[in-house]
């Protein structure tokens, strides 16, 4: 057992912050992804262009740049918006909110492609059959189409979540006290950077392993009732 010089508790606090950040970004990102997929299939052309532009931009610029842009850019934009309303003080998003929004934007950009593919893979006949049975549009979406698309989208979304969890480390750059930031503090006090960054790496590996087994369980659950895996 390595000597963490009493910083174990701080690192665990950081771990908790990382988990909260990842789950918040996941929740917002899933909504963005669904909205993006819906926009891509929209009958209105400008909506489709907007969704296309969103995914192209997100896939073309670094996550770190998105984090920095949201954190520093939002404060400038919010102040510009607030000035006509008579407020001249300093406004900024907290690192947590800015980080969650930035990571959610990234996740959502990739997830909308995953959802689009998944919704296309659900046979139209399924929705038509539900309509013929007299189900409403909302009921059809939530009870027929979404559960089937979910099964197809899950592996892709799982990969994206693993990427998202590793990207949470980037939010340490704007000062959120998650695993990396806590490790930096510990490094400053003990002058043992290798020990603490390795401890951080172990925490991330642990998160990856736990998420992977959770995802495997969710995939098994989503696939119950499906024929067993065909030969590849």
């Amino acid at each position, binding site marked *: 057992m390595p000597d963490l010089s009493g910083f174990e508790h701080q690192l665990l606090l950081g771990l908790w912050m990382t988990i909260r950040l990842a789950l918040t970004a996941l929740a917002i990102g899933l909504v963005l992804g669904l909205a993006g997929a819906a926009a891509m299939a929209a009958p209105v052309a400008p909506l489709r262009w907007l969704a296309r532009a969103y995914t*192209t*931009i997100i*896939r*073309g*610029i*670094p*996550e*770190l*740049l998105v984090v*920095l*842009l949201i954190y*520093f*850019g939002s404060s*400038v*934009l919010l102040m510009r918006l607030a000035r006509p309303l008579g407020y001249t003080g300093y406004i900024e998003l907290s690192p947590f909110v800015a980080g969650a929004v930035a990571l959610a934007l990234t996740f959502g950009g*990739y997830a909308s*492609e*995953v959802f689009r593919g998944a919704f296309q893979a659900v046979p139209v006949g399924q929705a038509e059959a539900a309509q013929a049975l007299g189900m409403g549009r909302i009921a059809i979406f939530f009870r027929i189409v979404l559960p089937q698309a979910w099964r197809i989208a899950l592996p*892709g979304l799982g*990969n*994206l979540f*693993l*990427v998202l969890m*590793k*990207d*949470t*480390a*980037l939010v*340490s*750059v704007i000062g959120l006290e998650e695993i*990396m930031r806590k*490790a930096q503090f510990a*490094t400053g006090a003990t*002058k*043992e*950077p*290798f*020990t603490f*960054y*390795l401890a*951080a*790496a172990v925490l*991330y*590996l642990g998160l*990856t*392993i736990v998420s*992977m087994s959770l995802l495997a369980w969710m995939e098994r659950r989503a696939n119950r009732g499906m024929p067993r895996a065909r030969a590849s």
Partner: protein
Amino acid sequence: MNIDVMIAALPKLLEGAWLSLQLLFISGFFGLMIAVPLSIARSSPRLAVKALPYAYIFFFRGTPLLVQLFLVYYGLSQFAFVRESPILWPVLKEPYWCAIITFSLHTGGYIAEILRGAIQAVPVGEVEAARALGMRRSTTLARIVLPRAARIALPAYGNELILMLKGSALASTVTLLDLTGMARTIIARNYMPVETFLMAGVIYMTITFVLVRGLRFIEHRTSAHMRGRPTGPDTAPPESIA
């Protein structure tokens, strides 16, 4: 939005973009060098041979690039033998080399996993045919399996290059003035984060666009024998882990 600010920042940002491209291509090259032996060992049916590459790939794909970069740049200096070594220290005290070493090791892990999939996707019949013609295992590997696997892996390797371009932005966290680092120093002077970061974003998008086009061209040139089959890096999933 202030267009003048964006244009004024352009020369410096392009200077930064040049460093980003250096980091990308040098680590892309070394990453490939690391990945080839790793993927061959990883495809082995023997546990003793594949255990180490498996652990390597798992570590580099399971932890954030930022942690890996800090482990190399800040972490290794914890050890006295590194600081006192006349060979290691001149290299490891330079953020430039630390970034290149980390990015190469990182992308090497990802490319190895891509190559492993490609090696396993080479039709068994082709390997058997080579063996039947009397080729030795090493010859079969060099002349049949690896060239075939290289073509199969190409689209995914292209995706990995683009992910690495985006990852190279982390070089700015170890004081390097790559495209992102340059943008951050410009902002420290002009206080125009939105304009400057957007301009940097535009340059990243342009590089991505050129990379995607270039890769598509190479894919087209190397698929003359199977024309008609749809190819293209943008149809593949963005990133996958185990």
